[in-house]
């Protein structure tokens, strides 16, 4: 009887080799092999640290983006939000310097500013999208323009620089670490692990996927849809703040060109990692691999001269499109 099939038939279908699951991993492995063959320094400690630390900013943001996209949303504003938060952070720290003096408190104040600003920015996006019911694409397209213009205005068209004395104090947050692992990498790893667990094992992750899959079904199932969607934007804002905290000590400045195209790189990483753009399914570990793939491409092109580094964008583009084709294949196969 069919009823007993339910209990006894193992998940054969899922066990089959699935390109959608293993695709990103294979692509990453292929890139590593290519990189190692082309340049012996590629797998060196210095290069690996460099690649991972640089991808940490986008990576931290992309983890948050995974939840936004999985629940059927989108956030185009994260790049300019990061620039704005960085600018704000630098202004606040510089302004507090005379009163607080050079020391940890100023740095902490700066960090707090970044987190609070990020959360508020995410909250504003969230309110406009969930309470007023405006398309996420439109809201965040608007806020993207607003933050970009605000940071340009704050910097008066130029560059906002962190006071030199603070820079020396703050630098280690990007350049140091523990046990030889740089702080940005550690933070990225912690965010990714928490994100992965939250996506797979927490109610929040389950609700995100349910909402992305069918908003109405989630609502009729007593899920607080607006609250969950709001939370995804607030968390993303918080992570933008966190990424900025790791980013500012690297250059010690912010300008109109800070964080340009980060939003697209974050979204691309999410998609390459196997999260469905229209929502309903998210995979944080995939996003992490997506982020690393994207930065490895740039890195390999820089290390070798077989292909011009100017083609970086083209190769990334091809990978993104390939990833989406693989997703679609899965959808239409029955």
């Amino acid at each position, binding site marked *: 009887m*069919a009823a007993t099939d339910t209990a006894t038939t193992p998940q054969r279908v899922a066990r089959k080799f699935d390109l959608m699951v293993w695709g990103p991993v294979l692509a990453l492995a292929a890139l590593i092999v290519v990189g190692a063959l082309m340049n012996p320094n590629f797998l060196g400690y210095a290069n690996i640290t460099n690649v991972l630390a640089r991808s940490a900013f986008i990576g931290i943001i992309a983890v948050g983006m995974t939840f936004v996209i999985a629940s059927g949303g989108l956030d185009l504003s994260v790049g300019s939000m990061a620039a704005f938060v960085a600018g704000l952070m630098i202004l606040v720290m510089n302004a507090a310097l005379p009163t607080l003096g050079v020391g940890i408190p100023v740095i902490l104040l700066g960090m707090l500013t970044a987190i609070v600003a990020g959360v508020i920015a995410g909250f504003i996006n969230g309110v406009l999208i969930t309470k007023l019911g405006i398309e996420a694409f439109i809201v965040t397209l608007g806020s993207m323009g607003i933050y970009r213009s605000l940071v340009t205005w704050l910097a008066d068209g130029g560059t906002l620089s962190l006071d030199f004395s603070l820079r020396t104090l703050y630098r280690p947050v990007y350049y140091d670490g523990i046990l030889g692992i740089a702080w940005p990498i550690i933070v990225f790893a912690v965010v990714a692990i928490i994100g992965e667990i939250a996506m797979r094992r927490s109610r929040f992750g389950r609700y995100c996927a349910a909402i992305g899959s*069918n908003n109405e079904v989630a609502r009729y199932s007593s899920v607080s849809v607006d609250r969950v969607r709001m939370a995804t934007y607030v968390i993303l804002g918080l992570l933008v703040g966190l990424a900025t905290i790791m980013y500012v000590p690297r250059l010690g400045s912010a300008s109109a060109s800070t964080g340009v195209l980060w939003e697209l790189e974050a979204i691309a990483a999410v998609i390459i990692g196997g999260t469905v753009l229209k929502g309903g399914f998210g995979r944080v570990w995939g996003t992490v691999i997506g982020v690393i793939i994207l930065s490895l491409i740039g890195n390999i092109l820089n290390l070798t001269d077989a292909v011009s580094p100017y083609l970086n964008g083209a190769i990334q583009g091809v990978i993104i499109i390939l990833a989406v084709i693989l997703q679609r294949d899965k959808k239409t196969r029955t």
Partner: protein
Amino acid sequence: MNDPILSLTDVRRSFGEVEVLHGISLELRAGEVHALIGENGAGKSTAMKILCGYLSATSGVVSFKGQAHPFKDANEAEAKGVVMIHQEFNLADMLSVEENIFLGRELRRGILLDKKAMQAKTRVLLDQLNCSAPATARIDTLSNSDKQMVEIAKALSRHAKVLVMDEPTAVLTKTETAVLFEQVEALRAEGAAILFTSHKLDEVRQIADRVTIMRDGDVVHQGPTADMSEDQMAEAMVGRDVSQLYPPKGSVPQDADVVLKVKNLTVPGYSTDISFDLHAGEILGVSGMIGSGRTETMEGLCGLRRATATQVQINGVDVRITAPKQALGYGLCYLTEDRKGRGLLLDKSMRENLTLQALDTFGSILIDRAAEEAALATATKDFDIRASHKDVKVGNMSGGNQQKLLVAKTMLSAPQIVIIDEPTRGIDIGTKQQIYEFIRGLANSGKSVIVISSEMQEIIGLTDRVIVMRAGRIAGMLSGHDIAEEPIVRLAMGMAAQTELKTKEPV
């Protein structure tokens, strides 16, 4: 007897490694209405899809006018006059009625679309079906029965030689069904071959010339409809006697606790001043025509729509419910009639669907997967949910099994008061019996149930008391032996019921 126009011979079909059709044969003849009946998951929809080119057979032969393997896909089948109406709607939600009906075969004048002509033809088609939906209305604004009528109009406009309909009447009222059957008879007279499924056996008796009965992927009976009674059909389908469909009614004591008291509930645009009491251990029916505001009223009560009320009391405590989550907190839960659009996540597995509403009870910080699996195992057993394997996407399950899963999902959050909208839509008679028994069991254990139903027999057979709604208001209330077809219909149509009415609740 004339030659079959479209037939299956020894057709098998597997999904993955699970075979769901075990070699079935079926012959459709011109000028004949053929009914295909069977339990949920028996393979009716699968067989129909194979007939019409939507699915291929794993082995066996489809033949059309004597030619084997006639269609490479559904488009080719349709071009040759084999048209199918699917169990679930297959319309483009954002397009208008007219655009849907002419999708892919738009009429043109020169290089431009001839909107006028298409709208006029749409009007004619819809008028034939007594359907008042405007040709320019967007599909997502239509009621379920209007959507079904559009599906039917679309099929009629194809001038089908073979018309295959998968549960066309599941969302239709009696009157609408009658209109559809007139069209079916006209088609039969023109010499078309018609195949349909239905879980309403009286319809099968009424219109089908021949009937094929399936059970678990096999054909168990084939023959003229006239040779069989409804009870015999049911027994052949289910494999046991189901003539006793409804469990004995309980007796709700006069002084039973009022668990839910509603006063002057108004859902703007849908219903006005709805007041009623619900007692512990009671099954309250809500009857009325489609569009009388039954669903919207209950959705308003549960915080799914904006609504106002002078008083809502649960267990004697005044409450104000603005979100479904709150309602659930008070033990009040609504089970939707729209299982595809509002009930189930079609691209997720049974487990994720089952626990979605009661997820709070699975684990503390992280979700307890083992407990979820256990709940699924219990639910599949208790509700007899049959799927080809447990990781199947819910969208690939048979309609009736989806419905059982939806009921299981709602029950998992252990509501004290449950409102079930169309509990047995698309469910086979054996399962119906199980669901009725389940609902009565709930009531007997002290819970309270509100059943919204368009099926008169269900209201009469199952409920202790009935509210009849008409045009957004309560037209009357019947209880005990007064619950019968005539007074309900009279109230629903706006006439006074003959029997004495108890329109007002004792306050």
